[in-house]
């Protein structure tokens, strides 16, 4: 009998000294384990990557090897064929970090972290550039946390999507080279419990920035937007400190921008419930309120108020408390307007009491953090109001009290009517292939009448004890603004509370009265042209046109 693995090993290692070159195209083995049991029963086979070598494991314990004779011709001594355009890919040289032990990074070897694993990134340059692949979140969405000790700080990393990778970088923090993680791809949450802990490096080269945890630590989710090259940071808890070099030297975006960009906050901090977009140059592109889940303050309300009502833009949720403001967004903005809240935002609309009057406003777009905006209320050119409170900026449009009821009333009065609320609050009514642009007035009157009425050339609408004027509205403000900007240099544009448009410039002023009904624009129509009756016709982006009478 042969019970000893040691003996077997000795037999296996027979002939482990010098060997002559193995013959090609025939099997050779070091001999069977047990005398007399050698046979041709092949239980296992392996093929080398190039297909030129085989291994055959036998049922008698021998591994036979086989090498094909090379048929490759000897290359000429000189060749002008150039370098090969492809080369064999290198095999992976990763280290897999498993739970239950701490894996120390070193030598630049990439690490694949398994759920629950612990990584130690030692000081020194040998780890710079090391790639860390985070585990794939499980189908049930449970966290696959990885613990990392870097620069003496302990971080928890929780991947959000599959394929999330990080790298170790060295970035100067206050002039001191500091090891910090950078997000290469995917999305993950980094949690630090210690104040001042470097969370994440962004940007590259001399434009690199390092985000650090504020007092008490922070939890931040970073997501790479591969299409824009930006990284979106979402602060889940705590405060994140932005370095001074995260700020662009000059703000290129207009302060009135609704969502595309904003200047970073003045206090250099990001608070819980805020999302920051960081460009590939390490500069902050914008900061807004919101969460990755889309369920926090500043995120879009899911408004389904009527079957025939839609919203072209985002109506932000304002009931949540802003960590930056220390109070609910709706309360903060109401106070900034000198108003008090008169109800909840159940249908997206805020009811405000100001000086004995009640107005209804519809919040629109992103709630931005913009330090250049300044506090206070401002009427924007598109006819909306912007309100700034401690760098937090919101835009408001006039609205009826209940847009859903308006849509239902329209459907009752005009079967087939559908209503859409535009991104600037303009109402777009569709009826039997015709379109109409309307704009509620800022103010409303007490009234008991309901439904629609026409008096003195104005369309009015009553609901919930209030009576609203529905003015003709500008259907496509962007097209109008473009025509003015390109065709009337030096002329400013503003939309008034009654829907009229004021053009001012060169000491003159014109008022344009939009027509409520829209028409189909003729094919190949110019951006605008005068009609025979003295009105101006504006081509809208959607193929319709709107007439404006001039006075």
């Amino acid at each position, binding site marked *: 009998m042969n019970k000893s693995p040691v003996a077997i090993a000795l037999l296996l*290692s027979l002939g482990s000294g010098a060997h002559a070159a193995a013959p090609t195209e025939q099997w050779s083995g070091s001999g069977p384990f047990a005398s007399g049991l050698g046979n*041709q029963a*092949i239980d296992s*086979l392996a093929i080398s990557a190039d297909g030129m*070598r085989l291994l055959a494991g036998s049922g008698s314990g021998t*591994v*036979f*090897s086989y090498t094909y004779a090379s048929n490759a011709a000897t290359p000429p001594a000189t060749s002008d064929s150039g370098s090969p355009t492809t080369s064999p890919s290198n095999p992976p040289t990763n280290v897999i970090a498993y739970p239950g032990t701490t894996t120390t990074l070193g030598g630049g070897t990439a690490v*694949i972290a398994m759920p629950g694993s612990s990584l130690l990134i030692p000081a020194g340059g040998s780890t710079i550039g090391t790639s860390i692949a985070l585990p794939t979140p499980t189908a049930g969405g449970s966290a696959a946390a990885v613990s990392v000790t870097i620069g003496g700080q302990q971080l928890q990393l929780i991947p959000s999507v599959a394929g999330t990778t990080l790298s170790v970088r060295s970035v100067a923090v206050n002039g001191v080279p500091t090891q910090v993680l950078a997000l290469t791809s995917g999305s993950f949450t980094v949690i630090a419990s210690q104040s001042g802990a470097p969370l994440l490096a962004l940007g590259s080269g001399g434009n690199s920035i390092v985000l650090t945890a504020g007092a008490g630590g922070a939890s931040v989710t970073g997501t790479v937007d591969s299409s824009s090259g930006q990284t979106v940071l979402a602060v889940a808890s705590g405060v994140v400190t932005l370095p001074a070099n995260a700020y662009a030297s000059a703000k290129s975006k207009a302060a009135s921008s609704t969502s595309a960009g904003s200047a970073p906050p003045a206090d250099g901090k990001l608070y819980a419930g805020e999302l920051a977009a960081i460009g590939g140059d390490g500069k902050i592109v914008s900061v807004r309120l919101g969460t990755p889940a889309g369920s926090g303050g500043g995120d879009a309300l899911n408004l389904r108020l009527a079957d025939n009502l839609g919203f072209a833009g985002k109506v932000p949720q304002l009931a949540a408390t802003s960590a930056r403001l220390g109070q609910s967004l709706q309360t903060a903005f109401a106070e900034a307007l000198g108003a008090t809240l008169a109800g909840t935002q159940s249908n997206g609309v805020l009811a405000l009491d100001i000086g004995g009057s009640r107005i209804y406003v519809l919040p629109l777009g992103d709630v931005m953090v913009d330090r250049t905006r300044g506090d206070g209320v401002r009427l924007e050119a598109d006819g909306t109001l912007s309100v700034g409170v401690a760098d937090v900026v919101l835009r408001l449009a006039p609205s009826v009290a209940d847009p859903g009821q308006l849509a239902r009333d329209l459907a009752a009065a005009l079967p087939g009517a559908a209503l859409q609320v535009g991104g600037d609050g303009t109402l777009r009514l569709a009826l039997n292939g015709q379109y109409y642009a309307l704009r509620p007035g800022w103010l409303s009157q007490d009234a008991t009448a309901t439904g629609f009425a026409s008096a003195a050339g104005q369309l009015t609408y009553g609901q919930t004890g209030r009576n609203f004027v529905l003015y003709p509205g500008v259907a496509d403000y962007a097209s109008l603004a473009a025509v003015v900007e390109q065709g009337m240099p030096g002329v400013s544009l503003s939309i008034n509370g009654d829907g009229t448009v004021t053009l001012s410039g060169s000491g003159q002023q014109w008022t344009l009265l939009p027509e409520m009904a829209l028409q189909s624009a003729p094919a190949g129509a110019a951006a605008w042209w005068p009609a025979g009756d003295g009105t101006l016709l504006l081509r809208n982006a959607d193929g319709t046109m709107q007439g404006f009478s001039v006075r």
Partner: protein
Amino acid sequence: MKTPLATLALIAMLPAAATAAGNISGSDKYAWSDSSGWVNFSPPNGGVGVYDDHLEGYAWAENVGWIKLGSHGGGGYHAYANSAAGDWGVNLDGSALSGYGWSDSAGWIRFDPSGGGVSLNPLSGAFDGWAWSENLGWIHFKGGTPAYSVVFAPAPRVAAVLFDAADAQKARAAVAGAGIHLSSDGGASWSAAASQPGDRRLKSLVASPLAAATLYAASYGSGIFRSVDGGQNWSACANGGLDLRVYALIAAGNGTLYAATRGGIFASADCAAWSARSGGLPSSGGRYAPTVLAVDAAQPAVLYAGLDGNGIYKSSDGGTSWQAATGQPGNTAIRAVRVKPGASGTLFAASYGGGAWKSGDGGVTWSACATQPANLNLRTLAIDAAGKLYAGSEAGVFASTNDCSSWTAMNAGLPN
């Protein structure tokens, strides 16, 4: 006779002379019965074979004659049903033996009787304990005075061989009964790993597609072991949730490990925590367990499982659900399945006794290869990147360069 199998006695007829060769030690081969004397488990012209899940072959007692350990022959995998006339014998589950042997003169011999029972130490190979026969009484497998014992001493079998992905001079072998061995000269010489897996019943050896130095070895009885240094040192994975009786292990291109076990198929990202992936596979208490696995290199979620005696199944969702091939190979003693690189719809299967099989529709239907290797007792398959197919048989290696339309023996250098 109290056994429920009594009615099967007439069917369990022994041949006039047993000829199977077993794998019991030539020196430690005797059990003892007070009433009938020595029972030889490695007699001339007979012998008992111990396999992963069952025993087969013949023992000899001078006063009783031949004792047959099971109706199955030919090794491989076979869990006896012990409820059917043609399917009875002694099962091995981990270290516990159960079921029945048969003697024409003494009747049934039970290996898991109340008050007794026989075990097999998976590392030392030593039997221990007591079997029971109504007519012979107790049969003792290990005694002190005089010293006697029955010891399973298999020839070391090379269960798996593996090249390093980057260096064909580096090779590893998983040898059942002898552990992991490494070669740095292309297989010309071998040395044992510095520290071995804690179970030598090795079945598979795979490299992680994510990290070249990380290897996994599967054992029947102790689950999966891992090496992070290219095979020199091994430690057991946590193996949470895994049936430790592993027949086969594969790694998909995305790093997911799949293990075929007696309890079904399991998947894991890290070999620590495993989840069952056996939806749609037959559940027969260990019978028809999946013993073969394959994955499509181009589609990590497309898996194939060979169920010994029950054919080939396919999963397109990472093992969550399985569907049996609608046209199974004519021989379902499946030993290997391989997907042709670059042609996901083309697969090959090796069967023991039925030769090679081919599917041209992604494993839905199978047909016998147009020509067969000279030996139909195939044990394994391999296929290179160019599609050259190799079959390991009981009579050497055969190669095909035309999708098994023809085969060439390549046995020069193999022992006769």
